């Protein structure tokens, strides 16, 4: 019993478990974020979306989860940095010839790079929306929905995604996310010890579909707005 919990997240196996837990938590966030933002495709001038955004911005549970989310992102990143540095230490001499593609997927070997690209995208994304909604104000007038005043997050989206290079940055961000998830989704289950002959093929298929469709739906948002499909 003296060993209870000691080193649970510091040993090599524990570090994987931490990556898996935080990864799955971030995946659950993606589902919520994607579902809410997809309401823009209702194409009602942002009515449902602005109401949903208002709920997300004011609900106490969501606001607490927002802090947990940032903690989760930071833990995921710090853990990844520790993993990378440990691996460098364990593997200081490289092979002259390394046939990586013969034994693993490129995106499995380049998770750190993909994660860095996602982080860069995240900074741009947070400055575009979150930072303004929380701190500086959107800089555009609010809208009236059913006699009530709402912050015009939808109007902000239309404004941000009217710029071509921003749309390109968002698409590249989503491509990075897709490949990161392609490895990360099933990898999280493996790290948590959830590998089973019956269920693993289902988890892998779900992971692949998730990695394609969630980033695709996200990417379609700036694309649809830029090309004027949404009013």
């Amino acid at each position, binding site marked *: 019993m003296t060993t209870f919990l000691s080193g649970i997240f510091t040993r090599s196996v524990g570090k*994987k478990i931490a990556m898996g837990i935080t990864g799955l938590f971030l995946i659950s966030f993606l589902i919520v974020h994607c579902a809410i933002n997809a309401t823009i495709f209702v194409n009602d001038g942002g009515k449902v979306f602005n109401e949903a955004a208002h709920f997300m911005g004011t609900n106490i549970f969501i606001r607490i989860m927002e802090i947990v989310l940032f903690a989760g992102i930071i833990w995921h990143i710090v853990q990844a940095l520790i*993993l990378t540095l440990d691996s460098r230490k364990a593997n200081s001499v490289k092979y002259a010839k390394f046939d990586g593609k013969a034994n693993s997927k490129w995106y499995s070997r380049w998770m750190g790079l993909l994660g860095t690209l996602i982080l860069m995208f995240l900074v741009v994304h947070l400055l575009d929306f979150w930072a303004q909604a929380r701190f500086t104000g959107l800089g555009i007038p609010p809208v009236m929905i059913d006699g009530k005043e709402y912050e015009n997050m939808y109007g902000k989206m239309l404004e941000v995604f009217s710029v071509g290079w921003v749309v390109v940055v968002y698409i590249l961000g989503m491509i990075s996310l897709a490949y990161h998830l392609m490895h990360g989704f099933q990898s999280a289950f493996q790290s948590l*010890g959830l590998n089973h002959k019956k269920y693993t093929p289902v988890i892998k298929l779900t992971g692949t579909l998730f990695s394609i469709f969630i980033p695709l739906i996200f990417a379609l948002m700036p694309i649809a707005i830029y090309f004027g499909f949404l009013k």
Partner: protein
Amino acid sequence: MNLTLKIWRQKNKNAEGKFETYPVKDVSPDMSFLEMFDYLNEELINKGEEPIAFDSDCREGICGSCSMWINGRAHGPVPGVTTCQLHMRSFKDGETITVEPWRAKAFPVIKDLVVDRSSFDKVIAAGGFVSINTGGAQDGNTILISKDDASEAFSASMCIGCGACVAACKNSSAMLFVSSKIFHFASLPQGKVEAKTRVQNMVAKMDEEGFGDCSNTYACEAQCPKEISVEKIAKMNREYLTAKLT
């Protein structure tokens, strides 16, 4: 067959190593990779040069001694075989073959292609055993073991400890080896008794010996000459978590 070999030469643990190029003529396609090395070494000895040091023992794919990184892959291009079971017919005439030692901090090079894998022995000593009191052995059939459990233990016991998993891993992680050694025992009733301490002690020793962390690229499974599944690693994660939480 005529081949060009680019081989890592290193005098000792502390010396700087470098690649040397050796042309090898009239190689039979039926030679094993190690026999081709014997052939080359004979030539070097006849010329008065230092032969190339490499590990080998049983030469029938079960001892785990041979350990060569051939053309960017552990045990060469054919899946599911050790270097000694790799034959020259798997290469093209005129090909240049690059041969390197396993690369990992926990496997320091001793000489040329020979690495020190005693870190594996230390991990085994930390928990890769079953404590049995001495005395008269009881009848084997008194302990009932299902076929599934027996097969699981057997598939784990396939590990020959060659180190290809560590060599192939971009993180130099030993998790496929360690998890195999754990479930070699933990799948059976006699081994279950010490399951909790075993997983914790072996994982701790693995970390201490300087092996890296696993990031689930599954390169180990792809290059394991015994084709052991990464399912073992997931089971180890599960067992580790259970041991820590209960």
